[in-house]
């Protein structure tokens, strides 16, 4: 079971080259197949995930959550998807049509692109970039543009305010996000994901870098626009923020992209701080799924526990607390590495 997916990929390439294709083209086709696989996994996973969040939020409030459709209400998301697919598609007349229509697509494409570098098992990265971690951060920073496009294109005050809020928030929290990961990079000496996983074979980085983990967790929550940092969506004041004017499937694409981002960030957290796919007995790809889902549950718990915090508190928390702390963490890590190297480790 361990090498099932890797062997399948090798077999596919071998078969394609056997048909007389040049190796470059065979690799390209493999890449396309991997992309399609990622998209299918993302969509299936999100069906489960939305059900899980509704169920978990129910349990937190001592409710039952969806339980009418299928076993434990698992088909609830399918019903929602069918409904959203058949909803009327409204493009309001005064919108900036080009931007309004492309924004959800940009958002979902960027979210799916994050999966390229995540090691989903032993040797199961789509591309093992030598700058993998940096790739994740910089592609993640692009999603601000999609939200700005949605906010501007809708030609709606709430949308614009929501878009601007989310951009202000995401730009501020990107800095502690990147800085907190720097500590890990300093210890590993590499931005390559497989190196980071390999460096954790003895001890997880969450033990070596607790401060970095906490700052990363907080800023990742803010970066995902999830509660308690969901100011851009704030239903009570901005109806739905940047998504206010979107109907049916366009809105569903935004929703899909948000959950895709959530899973990607959780998987990255599992990779960087919790030893990635490493674990005893079970196959490696199962381990990363288990770890990702545990982290996702913590995200759910946090969202359904804390009330939304105020916009100015949000910003000052990032600039006045998280950034200094993550910088201090870098200093501490550097000093620690230097001391340990002098001691002859």
């Amino acid at each position, binding site marked *: 079971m361990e090498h099932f997916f890797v062997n399948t990929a090798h077999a596919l390439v071998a078969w394609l080259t056997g048909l007389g294709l040049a190796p470059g083209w065979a690799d390209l086709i493999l890449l396309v197949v991997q992309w399609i696989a990622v998209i299918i996994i993302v969509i299936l996973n999100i069906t489960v995930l939305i059900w899980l969040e509704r169920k978990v939020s129910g349990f*937190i409030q*001592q*409710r*039952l959550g969806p339980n009418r459709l299928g076993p434990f209400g698992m088909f609830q998301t399918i019903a929602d998807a069918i409904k959203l697919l058949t909803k009327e598609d409204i493009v309001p007349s005064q919108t900036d049509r080009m931007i309004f229509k492309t924004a959800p697509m940009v958002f979902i494409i960027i979210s799916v692109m994050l999966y390229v570098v995540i090691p989903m098992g032993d040797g199961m990265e789509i591309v093992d970039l030598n700058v993998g971690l940096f790739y994740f951060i910089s592609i993640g920073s692009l999603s601000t543009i999609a939200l700005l496009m949605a906010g501007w294109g809708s030609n709606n005050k709430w949308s614009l305010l929501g878009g601007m809020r989310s951009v202000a928030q995401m730009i501020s929290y990107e800095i502690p996000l990147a800085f907190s990961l720097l500590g890990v990079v300093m210890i590993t000496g590499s931005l390559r994901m497989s190196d980071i996983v390999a460096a954790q074979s003895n001890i997880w980085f969450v033990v070596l870098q607790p401060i970095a983990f906490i700052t990363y967790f907080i800023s990742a929550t803010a970066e995902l626009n999830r509660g308690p940092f969901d100011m851009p969506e704030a239903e009570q004041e901005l109806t739905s923020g940047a998504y206010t004017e979107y109907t049916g499937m366009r809105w569903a694409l935004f929703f899909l992209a948000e959950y895709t981002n959530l899973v990607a960030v959780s998987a990255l957290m599992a990779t960087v701080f919790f030893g990635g796919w490493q674990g005893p007995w079970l196959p490696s790809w199962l381990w990363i799924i288990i770890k990702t889902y545990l982290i996702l549950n913590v995200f759910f*718990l946090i969202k359904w*526990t804390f009330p939304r915090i105020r916009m100015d508190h949000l910003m000052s928390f990032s600039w006045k607390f998280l950034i200094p702390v993550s910088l201090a963490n870098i200093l501490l890590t550097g000093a620690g590495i230097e001391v340990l190297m002098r001691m002859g480790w």
Partner: protein
Amino acid sequence: MYGTGLLKGLGITLKHTFEREITQQYPEQMPVLPARFRGNLQLDFQDCIACEMCTKVCPNGVLSLESVRDDKTNKKKLMSYSIDFQYCMYCNFCVENCPKHCLHFDHNFELAAYDRENIKKVYQRPQELVTDLPEEIVAAEEKNQKRISVMIGALQKDAPKILGKLLEDEEKGKVLAAALASDQDKLEKIAVMMVEDIEKAKKVAGALANKAAKDHPKEGNVVA
């Protein structure tokens, strides 16, 4: 220390996650309602003395009733009682003021309806209580019933002719008769109308005939 409050909050939600759910599964498991819960307003028809205390006290004009006076005993008899529930605000005045305690709220709260007309509840005098009324009314009612049954019989025997006469158009009568042949209920309703209010019957029959002519032009011709 920063963050202890957050952890405490997380702990509380985590604790609740593993506690027993308190949800009542409504359609299968009905809620246990307190004894004085006010659901649907009900009337005990026999006990009502048509004193109209309830209709007078009702602030929203929910209740209305029809009654006849029995000259011999000088007492009113209730003919029909209607509760237009969509205006009710559950103030309980009618129940409190009813001298015979024949109004009460039951525990039924499932009142959803597709039409506003269906919310209104009308109590007609039940058949077994009709004999209780003053003689001339009973006699009139009996006569009426007889006429209706005769009319129904006639309609069942020779519908096209009677309906044609009613509509003053034989073709239409035939069409309508063909359409109503399979619909005993409607036939009887038209019969009642013809006895009680001939103008209304004409109107309704005309509308029905037009509709029938539109829906099944061929079938009507075949019968003809």
